[in-house]
C-alpha cells in the first residue's frame, strides 16, 4: 500500500492504494465519484476522460500512484454549484446525448480541448474530439454543442 494525495475537484483526499489500482478505479470505488465512467477500460472509448493538472487524460490507463499530489477534475467538479458549465448547458440544448454513458468523458474532453486552444474549425473540433466515442450516434449534437460554446467565447 502506498499513501497518496489526490486533489479532486478542489478537495484534498488522502488514500492508501495498491500500485495496480487505476486512477479510474480510485475515483469510482474509493472516492465514490462515479460520474467518471468505465467504458472499455482499454483506452479506446474516452468515457473515463478526466482533467489531470489541467490536461485531459484517460483515467483507465493511469495508475493512481503515479498521480500523487495531482489536481484532478472530474465531471462532478465541472459546474459552479447549481450553475451548469456552459458545455453542460449546451449538451442539453443540442440533444448531445441519448444514453449518457459517454457524456462525462465527452464534456471533460471538450473542456480540455477548448483549454488547449488548437481547434479553429469544425473539422478541427471533430478531429480533436475523436478520442471520445458515442455509440448512440449523438456526435452531430455533441459537435454542435461544443461549437456553440467555442464560438460563444469558450469557457469563462
Amino acid at each position: 500500500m502506498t499513501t497518496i494525495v489526490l486533489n479532486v475537484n478542489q478537495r484534498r483526499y488522502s488514500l492508501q492504494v495498491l500500485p495496480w489500482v487505476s486512477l479510474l478505479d480510485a475515483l469510482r470505488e474509493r472516492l465514490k465519484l462515479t460520474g467518471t465512467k468505465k467504458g472499455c477500460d482499454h483506452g479506446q472509448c474516452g468515457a473515463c476522460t478526466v482533467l489531470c493538472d489541467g490536461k485531459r487524460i484517460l483515467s483507465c490507463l493511469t495508475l493512481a500512484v503515479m498521480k500523487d499530489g495531482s489536481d484532478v477534475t472530474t465531471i462532478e467538479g465541472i459546474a459552479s454549484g447549481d450553475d451548469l458549465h456552459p458545455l453542460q448547458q449546451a449538451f442539453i440544448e443540442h440533444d448531445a446525448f441519448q444514453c449518457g454513458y459517454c457524456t462525462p468523458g465527452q464534456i471533460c474532453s471538450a473542456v480540455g480541448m477548448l483549454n488547449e486552444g488548437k481547434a479553429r474549425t469544425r473539422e478541427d473540433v471533430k478531429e480533436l474530439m475523436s478520442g471520445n466515442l458515442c455509440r448512440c450516434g449523438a456526435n452531430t449534437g455533441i459537435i454542435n454543442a461544443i461549437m456553440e460554446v467555442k464560438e460563444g467565447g469558450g469557457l469563462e
Partner: protein
Amino acid sequence: MNNFEYKQATDAIDATDAVAASEDAMFIAGGTNLVDLWKYNLVHPKLLVDINHLHNHKHITELENGGLRLGALVTNADTAYHPLVEERYPLLSKAILAGASPQIRNMATNGGNLLQRTRCYYFYDPDVPCNKREPGSGCPAMEGYNRIHAILGASDQCIAVFPSDMCVALAALGAVVNVSGNNGERSIPFTDFHRLPGDAPDIDNHLHHGDLITSIDLPVRGFAQNYSYLKLRDRHSYAFALVSVATALELDGGIIRDARLALGGVAHKPWRMHEAESVLIGRTADEATFAAAAEVILADAKGFKYNNFKIELARRAIIRNGMMALNPETQLPGAQPSA
C-alpha cells in the same frame, strides 16, 4: 493481470539500475501501452519503475549543430505543438497528431512511442498461438484474417506491423535515438532502432534489458517547405494506419533536389528505402516521378489473402502524398487525403 511493486526513480542511473537488477522489472512513463498490455495479461512485470520524475529528460532543446533534442519524457502532444517542432519539423508534428487520440497524446511520451507493441489481433489474443508473444508457437495471422498485416519485410515467423505514426516521420527525417544503459550511453540511427521479425519476432528493437531512451535528436534539415504525412485507415480518425506515408522534399524550381520517403503500417518497422529516394532526386515533382519511386519501394512487396490491397493502396498513397507535399498549406487535420 498480475500484482506488481512500484518505485519512483530519482534519476536515469537509479532507473536503469532498478530495471537491470530484475528481468521482470519494466520502466513506466505515459503507460498508455504498458498498462493496456498488462490488463490483457501480455506483460507480467513484478516491478514498475516510474521514470516521470527524471526532469532532465522533459525538455526540448536546441543542439549546437542546429538540430533539436526531444527529451524522451516530453509528451507526444507537447512535442507536436512545440513552436520549434511546428516551425522546423512540421512533418513530425503532423505525424504525431495523426496518431492515437488527444488524451493519449497528452499522456504518451516520445520514448514510449518508440516502444509500443504491435496491434496484431492475434498477438492480443492469449487463446491462440503467436510467435511474437510465445516464440515457436506459430502465427495464425498468415492463414487468418490479415487485413492490417505486413506487405514488406515480413518473415515466415511473423507478419505483424509496427503501429507508430510518429516513428514514420522520425525515420524519414533521419533522427537519432540516445540511450542510457548499464554499459554507458550510445546513439542509434533511427532506421537501425527497430528490427525486422526474422526468426525472433518477439524482439521489436535493438535495446537491451535496462536500456533507457533518454532523448531523440533531429538533424538540422527539417524539410519545412515541402512535406506531407498521409494516413489511410478503416475509420476517419483514432485508428491505426492501414498504410501511411511520410514525404519530405527539397525543391528547386519544380525539380526535386533531395527527398525522403517512409511508409508506416506496412512492416515490422518504419519502412524507409534510400533507393526509392534516389529515384526522386533530379526529377520533376509530378505524379510520374512519385509513381517511379513507388515501384522501387514496393518492388518486393508481398500481400496475403486479406491485405493484398495494401500494395496498390501504398502505391497510390505515395503518389498522392507526393503531390500533397507540394502544397502543405492545403493539408487537412488528421492526415487525411487532400487535393
